[in-house]
């Protein structure tokens, strides 16, 4: 199966560990991975800030880049960015050159955990991680992409990992893309509430499917001098893997 890695600008600029872990996991499950070098960004930073005209080039570039390899699927390590790609058909519907391509790219793009669970039918990725962890569900992954099951389902099978539910998990962590930098006084109060709830769980590890949220929450933890280990779900599923533990779902999720 040919898979294009939609690396996202955040991973390209900041988090090589996330991209590496995702690639290794996908290859473990038989994916032949490609990384088109012209890809950049889904366009959210500017589009969501109101620079719609200035984002057109980013949209087109991203579509062309992701379609430059004739792959079966496109997989990204960020729920928010994948949700944005899924909205491309709506944004490009009046663009005669790109409307069809936008539909094509949206139809085969999946968030990493969603792809493992829903497309490949992975039940147990074979990972082992000793520790107490909690999971931050990102707003865009749950509300815009509509995926609230796959990360929990996969994390439940990680050997040695104790998952502790997070209070007020439905509240935004205050990232919001450029919101975090444009309205720091509001964003700070939101991330402090989130940090408080995470500390209350007693977890040592914070896991999420969105590097943006992790960058916000992790950065605040560091500023406040509170200890935490930040892990993207791909890193968790790539920890101490014993392939004999790998299992597949008997029934595919609907």
């Amino acid at each position, binding site marked *: 199966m040919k898979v294009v890695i939609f690396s996202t600008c955040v991973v390209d600029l900041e988090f090589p560990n996330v991209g590496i872990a995702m690639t290794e996991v996908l290859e473990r499950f038989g994916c032949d991975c490609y990384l088109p070098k012209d890809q*950049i960004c889904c366009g959210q930073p*500017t589009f969501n800030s109101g620079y719609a005209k200035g984002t057109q080039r980013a949209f087109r570039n991203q579509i062309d880049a992701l379609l430059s390899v004739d792959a079966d699927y496109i997989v990204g390590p960020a729920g928010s960015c994948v949700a944005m790609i899924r909205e491309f058909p709506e944004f490009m519907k009046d663009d005669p050159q790109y409307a069809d391509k936008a539909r094509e790219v949206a139809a085969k793009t999946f968030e990493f955990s969603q792809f493992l669970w829903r497309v490949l039918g992975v039940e147990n990725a074979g990972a082992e991680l000793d520790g107490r962890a909690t999971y931050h569900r990102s707003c*865009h992954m749950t509300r815009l992409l509509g995926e609230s099951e796959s990360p929990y389902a996969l994390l439940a099978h990680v050997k040695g990992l104790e998952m502790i539910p997070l209070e*007020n998990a439905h509240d935004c962590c205050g990232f919001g893309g450029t919101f975090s930098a444009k309205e720091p006084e509001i964003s700070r109060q939101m991330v402090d509430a989130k940090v408080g709830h995470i500390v209350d769980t007693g977890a040592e590890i914070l896991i999420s499917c969105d590097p943006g949220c992790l960058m916000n929450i992790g950065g605040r933890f560091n500023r406040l001098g509170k200890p935490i280990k930040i892990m993207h779900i791909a890193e968790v599923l790539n920890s101490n893997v014993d392939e004999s533990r790998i299992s597949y779902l008997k029934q595919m999720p609907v």
Partner: protein
Amino acid sequence: MGIQTSDKPLLERVKESEQDKFMQASVAKSQDAQHIKREDSRALLGNWEQWRELGEQIRQRALKYLPDYLEQFSDNVEKNGGDVFFAATEEEAVDYIQKVVKETGAKRIVKSKSMVTTEIDLDKRLLAMNQGLQLMETDLAEFILQEDDWAEPTHIVFPALSKNRDQVREIFMKLGYEGDNDPMHLARFARKYLREYFLKSDLGITGCNFAVADNGMINLVTNEGNADLTMAIPKTQIVVMGMERIVPTMNDAEILDNMLCRSAVGQKLTSYVTFEKGQVAGETDGPEHFHVVIVDNNRSRALGSEFQSILQCIRCGACMNVCPVYRHIGGHGYGSIYPGPLGAVLSPILGGYQAFQELPYASSLCGACTEVCPVKIPLHKLLIEHRRIITDQRHMQHGLNNLMMEAIGIGTGFPWLFRTAVRFGHLGLKPLASKGEVHAENFIKPEGSVKGGPGLVGGWADVRDLPLPPKNKDSFRQWFAKHKENQPKPGDQKANQ
């Protein structure tokens, strides 16, 4: 009051809200309690998503044929013996109401809760124009705010959410209350005080939850019954409604009442759900003179525009009850009588971008509002739409942040520019980085993090540390290129052995 409650900049209001610890705790507690009540009461309806679709369809149909439904409604009110006045502006609405006050010689006005009368600043304007006139807000929360020297409301459903029982007691003591801060005692005092007022009132002013086009009736939803007394006792009633309050039929009103009560307060129905059309022949209660004032006040700006769906709003306030921004900055943070996500979308339409251009940015676009809205208004998308108009159409964004955003626009459009950014990210940000203890493991690197910088970098770093980007040789792209080189290729001799 008018729609704008403060001309301070957003940042200043946010800082003031942060000082109001009682308000913040009260909003958080109310949000969490409402979450459970709302979801439970909705679950009792069965398939809530289908109800939302129905609610959306009813509201969309009402807006699509708004002129026709308004005409039908107006004809029916007149057929029932009432008068209808269409007010294009708030001044026209106030002038008409003033005319009725003069003609009836009203001395004591009772009012039930109505956002649109707050929007047109009706209370203060009437009091200013009529010496000796007495006017009383009879909704408990609005009563508290009025007696607190017209304090600004903080929520469209729970206007006095920011007041605690001790504050309420102090306000009531000015009116002769001598008891303790027990909410039951306070409420009993207010009830007696307001009842006496009701009995001597000669003009009632109400809002309108829904106006039913095909029979000319007004639908009011309350828990205190004060709106019913406002309708039943005075000889004259004036209903003030935003022009989009229309529903086609009683069936539609019934469906929306069911959704409104659950969304607003988590009840299957509120204690009082009333339909009225003035006095019915042969009965003694109800107003002899019935006026309906239908207010535009810039609502037609939204009609036929990309913002039309905001007129679907049924004023349940659920978007405020889920908003993580509202949770911290409260109603006063928005500087509008319409706060929260609804207010951030509606205020710039009704009050203009000059006054409210900051509000569309007071959102992390988390989509909780869109998800909870009973009539499916895409609130977070409308906020992006406002941002687009503010930046792309009106060019109201300036300064360093604007330049940075334009640079990001360019940087995300040209692959070679982005590859350059990946290559030089580490070197570029290194001058801004400093070393420090690592608390967020597997995230902040020992070589340091960015703790300050210009424009948006500073906005980020005011609150949190930014990991120093990896050196180019350690980037994901470099890793991937090497990884691929080392992979056996199809056709490779070694791979085939």
